[in-house]
């Protein structure tokens, strides 16, 4: 059964020259529940735009993005925000941790916009990612690898059905990258969350049984339309 179903998704931007450039043209894409899929894409292929559309951060020009039974493309902004908080965990390349907040507060904040704060679960998640002795540290007091682990804990805090990971190892050294990826997959497996990861790193992509080329999915990468 599909958790995520994309049909006829179009997203374009207006360039500074006034041209309309289509960056996403996805006729069809599906992701099953608990499925882990990697998308291969080099820089500028619309990877982040695709994830942002799925997350409801961006509105597509047209098409459907059905996630957990609701079409993100037709929902109002407020409903999209709510749906995102309830069903999606997002792991960013640059972690996007809030610098003034402790590790625990970063995770709690992730929860607060969804089902609600659960301090015990937040502690449990941070313990699971090996940061039980860093709960009250701020991101600037952590190593880069530790920061990514906080981001993983935060993304999983609301027990999302879908985890989106945008180049999650892009800022990590190979060893930390491998560990982070292992951790993400393990925790997604433990929580039955589906994982959609985009990366250009072949070593990362090799870890996945199912790896698809974004260029095959996104027809906009084959031709640039202008009007």
């Amino acid at each position: 059964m599909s958790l995520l179903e994309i049909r006829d998704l179009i997203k374009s931007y207006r360039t500074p020259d006034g041209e309309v450039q289509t960056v996403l043209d996805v006729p069809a894409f599906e992701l099953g529940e608990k499925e882990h899929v990697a998308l291969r894409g080099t820089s500028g292929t619309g990877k982040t735009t695709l994830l942002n559309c799925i997350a409801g951060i961006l509105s597509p020009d047209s098409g459907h993005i059905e996630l957990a039974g609701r079409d993100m493309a037709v929902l109002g902004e407020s409903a999209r925000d709510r749906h995102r908080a309830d069903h999606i965990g997002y792991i960013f390349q640059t972690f996007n941790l809030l610098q003034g907040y402790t590790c625990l507060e970063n995770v709690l904040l992730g929860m607060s916009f969804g089902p609600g704060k659960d301090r015990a679960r937040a502690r449990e998640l941070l313990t699971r990612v090996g940061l039980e002795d860093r709960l009250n540290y701020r991101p600037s007091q952590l190593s880069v690898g530790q920061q990514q682990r906080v981001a993983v804990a935060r993304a999983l805090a609301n027990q999302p059905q879908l985890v989106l990971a945008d180049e999650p190892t892009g800022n990590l050294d190979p060893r930390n990258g491998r560990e982070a990826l292992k951790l993400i997959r393990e925790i997604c497996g433990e929580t039955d969350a589906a994982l959609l990861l985009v990366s250009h790193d072949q070593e990362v992509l090799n870890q996945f049984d199912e790896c698809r080329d974004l260029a095959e999915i996104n027809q906009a990468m084959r031709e640039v339309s202008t009007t």
Partner: protein
Amino acid sequence: MTIWLIVRKSLRQHALSTAITAISIALASGLLMAVWVVKEQSMAAFTTVGKGDFHAVMGARGSELSLVLFSVFHMDEASATLPVQEYSDLVSVPANRRAVKGAVPIVVGDNYRGFRIVGTTTNFFEVEYAPGRKHQLKAGRMFNPNLQEAVVGSFVAQREGLTIDSIFQPVHGVYEQEGATVHNVNYVVVGVLEPSNTPADHAVWIPMAGAQNMEGHESSLSTDISAILIQFRDPALGVQWADRVNQNRRDVTVANIAPTVTAFFQRFEWLRTVLGAMAALVALVGAGGILASLYNTMNERRREVAILRALGARRGTVFGAIVLESATISAIGVAVGFVFYGGFMATAAWYIREQTGVVVDPWAGHSVLALGPLGILTLGTLAGIVPAAKAYGTDVAENLLPQS
């Protein structure tokens, strides 16, 4: 609550600008309240007299304001004296008695270290100086009309260190002047008045006969009086009587105290307007400070806002957090403003009392103590709307860099 966590974190992250902005608000709020309260209470110290049971004053023909100032506020000089017969007529002639309930003569012409010596009868102290309030003795007793005794106002006693049994010699003239004649007569302080925050605090009160017959005064005027304080039976009828006297007689003036004081302060209406404008300006500057401070931080906070939004925060939540932050800074400023206000007023009240004897009570209930902070709080909260709108419009995708 999450919104409070966001506000608290932001205030802590921008602690320096928060503190500076809150202090500027506090200064604005404290200054606004202090200036307003000093103005209102100083005016009240004057206008209280107009609410007492002395409704009018009769003196030699001249300016009504001058008559009220010298006879009630001890601030000016009498243009001339009145024969004591005027006082007798006031209390005995039927046409006058229909309007006049009581009258108290006063005689001035001497001072003690700049404080006016007022000769009068003990009836003066029987009349309410404000609704429900009569002059009371803090220590001692009332003077004996036949002896050289004095009752001193509280401010005079405090300033000059006069206590019961103190002895002083009056000096000729209503103002302190170098080389003025010191009357060779000893007056004994037998009573000290309770503070009333009225001109009575600033005067030395002696029997009328003593003031009239002071050694060195012109003997031909020894039965004259300086003015007569008048109580009306009915203030409305009294005003009509006063008008008749002023129209029919060329040698005396009757001034109605309350309208004269009011007319006097109406001359300073511009001051109220200027202070009001200043207060509004100060409040606007404070609110502008919050706006500028928050607006400037919004550029560096766009990523934070984008992250919050990506985590599921609605636009309204982000907007509300910024407005709440603005309100919180204002509230801190207003709270600290009361501390500044206390400091300003402690200094101002001391200075005003030392210079004028007017007692300013900083914590006496006054609407500006509620409306001022409330106004600043409202303005400060509204000032958060502009930066909040900027946060509201933050493009999430654009600020979650980098894109790949």
